[in-house]
């Protein structure tokens, strides 16, 4: 298992996205807008989704919170933008399994996102890291059903 020190986790992954969030701000037009929060730390996000057929054509977010929740959400938007709903769902499930410690996390599938695994060592922060992903999962439900 890759051992990432907290300092590396922050300095090499989190801070970049925290300081320069990708896809931040309102997305217009959008098909779905979800507001979710993590009352424990006061993290709040708004997630905007735009569908095109079976694809997640557009995604953006806004919000405030700790660096882990915001960076994780920013990385998420980069990763899933343009994927099919089904693929987006699968990536999300992989991330959730990885954060639950059930899976190592596949570099090929997840790329950079694997570095989020460093958070697993800080159980209380896992909720922060997953806030965006859980919101996305809800949002995908409202999109076109993937192959049925």
């Amino acid at each position, binding site marked *: 298992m890759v051992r990432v020190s*907290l*300092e590396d986790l*922050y*300095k090499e992954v989190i*801070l970049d996205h925290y300081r320069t969030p990708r896809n931040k701000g309102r997305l217009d037009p959008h098909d779905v807008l979800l507001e979710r929060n993590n*009352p*424990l*730390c*006061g*993290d*709040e996000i708004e997630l905007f989704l735009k569908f095109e057929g079976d694809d997640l054509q557009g995604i953006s977010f806004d919000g*405030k*919170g*700790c*660096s*882990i929740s915001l960076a994780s959400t920013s990385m998420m938007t980069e990763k899933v933008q343009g994927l099919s709903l089904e693929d987006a769902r699968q990536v999300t499930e992989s991330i959730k399994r990885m954060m639950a410690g059930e899976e190592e996390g596949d570099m090929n599938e997840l790329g950079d996102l694997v570095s989020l695994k460093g958070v697993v060592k*800080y159980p209380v*922060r896992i909720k*922060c890291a997953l806030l965006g992903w859980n919101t996305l999962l809800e949002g995908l439900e409202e999109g076109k059903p993937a192959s049925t």
Partner: protein
Amino acid sequence: MTFDAAVVRKDFPIFETETRGKRLVYLDSANTSQKPRQVLDRITQFYETENANVHRAVYELSEKATAAYEGARAACARFIGAPAPRSVVFTRGTTESINLIRFTWARQNVREGDEILITEMEHHSNLIPWQLFVQETGSILRHLPIDDDGRLRTDLLEEYVTEKTKLVSLSLMSNVLGTINPVRTIADAAHAVGAKVLVDAAQAAPHLRFDVNDLDADFLAYSSHKMCGPTGAGVLWGREELLEEMPPFHGGGEMIREVWADRATWNEIPYKFEAGTPNLAQAVGMGAAVDYLEGLGMEAVREHELELTRYALERLESIGATIYGPRELHDRGGVVSFNVEGVHPHDMSTIVDQEGVCIRAGHHCAQPLMRRLGVPATARASFYIYNTPEDVDVLIEAVEKSKGWFA
């Protein structure tokens, strides 16, 4: 006359452990305190030499258990200046004590249209029970505001304490701001309109000397685990005549006198409120915690914490932290909530943990107060008898480090 915290620290076995490979700097005692050997030994001794159920059995072992349990009750009464042990009900903690009043005294005495007054700085444990109560009964919940310094707006008392007010429930010390509230002033106002006063002393009991008579409280709640005692124990103190009048809460063994298939009569106070096998060893441990604290002297405890707080406020201000709560030390306890520009408290807490520093980050079970302060969360350092100025130094260094990461 104060004590040497470095010596006191030796009473607490947990400080022989390390966290993340570092010296443990525990600054979360407002959340729960660490436990001295004296208390742990007393609990073990109870189980090893006195363990039996109380009150009910005739044999010697049960008599020993009863003596230990009732001795603890006497200690917990003495600690808050309560006139009689029988006015002390053992509960699981402050939260249960407050809910007990919600389900007994309040149901009996607060009606539709009546008002319950709390404050803007209450812990959820002294807020949610009353939200639920007013929803159940059609009574009204009001919140006495605080000023920007984190002190109660006692100048508004006349407006908030009215003929409709039946209960004023407030904390003696805030777990977020550190403010020590002028309970006596408020109690006088409450009693002037015939309202009763419930004091949440969860934060006060571990740190301050006080007396239910001086406060002129009607009920008072406090928890063992925050004052060197075991988890799972707490006290509800009440004026005897009020406890006598109250209906029971839980039904079960021990709280009864005579039982028929369809009805029963109640045991005398405090047993009427202690249904089922009590938290025996925990009450005994809480009694030992009282003895331990009285051994140090509550005045000395207070003095020690004031010094640490003075030092911490000074150092935090010197690194540009925003402090929530009173800046002056008068009527202020050793709880310091703060934020540092650019560092979310959760990030800070995770980062300082790497240096062995335990602080709390979040809403501290006081979400409405967070809104009043206009922040989603704060960091919080809280001090106790085993903390030293060195702990503050380590904290400040660690906070600086977290700032560095985000710089």
